[in-house]
């Protein structure tokens, strides 16, 4: 082997110094690692919250049963309170009638308003006067003072 001892050769290779990490990497890699660490801490805190809730619920089957019963009750009430198609049709018809009535009432109000704003002639018949107006008018014939 031309004096090429295996151990000597391996020692020769071992003596070759390996390149060191580029100096700029330290800050960057440690910053990334710190970010990863804090992100994990955040996720662990939310996991802890879930774990606490689970830990509270797990040994309490009644709490789970109550929650399930509440959901079932909400579902049933929702189904029961939903109107049938006939009820929906009736409600729509009733709403249309009510709209029509409101329109009629509105037109009547307009007629009354028009009547009130029409000027009244003074020579109208006494029965057309309101009673309070008549009492305020003076009599046309003057009464001579008694001596």
């Amino acid at each position, binding site marked *: 082997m031309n*004096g090429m001892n295996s151990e000597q050769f391996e020692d020769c290779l071992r003596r070759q110094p390996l390149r060191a990490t580029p100096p700029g990497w330290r800050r960057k890699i440690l910053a990334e690692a710190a970010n990863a660490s804090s992100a994990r801490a955040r996720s662990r805190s939310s996991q802890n919250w879930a774990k606490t809730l689970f830990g509270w619920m797990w040994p309490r089957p009644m709490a789970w049963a109550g929650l399930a019963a509440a959901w079932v009750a909400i579902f049933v009430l929702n189904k029961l309170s939903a109107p049938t198609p006939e009820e929906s049709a009736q409600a729509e018809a009733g709403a249309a009638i009510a709209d029509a009535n409101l329109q009629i009432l509105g037109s009547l109000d307009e007629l009354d308003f028009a009547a009130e704003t029409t000027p009244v002639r003074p020579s109208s018949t006494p029965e057309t006067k309101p009673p309070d107006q008549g009492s305020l008018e003076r009599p046309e014939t003057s009464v001579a003072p008694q001596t």
Partner: protein
Amino acid sequence: MADEAELRRLYDAHANALYAYLLNLTRNESDSHDILQDVFCHVARRHDFVANAREERAFLLRMAYNAFVDSTRRRHAREHREQSFAQESVGLFEQAAHADEAVFRKELEAAMAELPVEQRSVVHLRLWEELTFDEIATLMQIPPDTAASRYRYGIDKLRDRLRHLYDEIR
């Protein structure tokens, strides 16, 4: 979860070794950086793994190797670029003071790049990390005999390749 002081300590103690190992595996500085960063992010998230490890360095080297294997699989599946690891060879060693040494290191880098990555990994861990074959076997999840035979094959190839230069620098 590791605090920042502990992360700094781990980096200062092991980053150079991990970097050199990754550089030897990937032959690519950018890939080495990404994998090294992955390793430290993983350490930051699950520091208890490292704290419970018997040999910190061996454990981190194992993490680096696993991260490299994962990265290679992803790359292989994605774009078949694994061959570029050997082509984009970067300086594995420090700059040499003498011309003969510089030539030898350059040839050694090239010879290492020609080794299959499994042999390269074993040779690196045995030569520069001075791990035993049992430790290498644990790290790479292979039988110790396989580690030993890979090392022997790798060293034989390097010796054949560097024979003409070895006598000059000896």
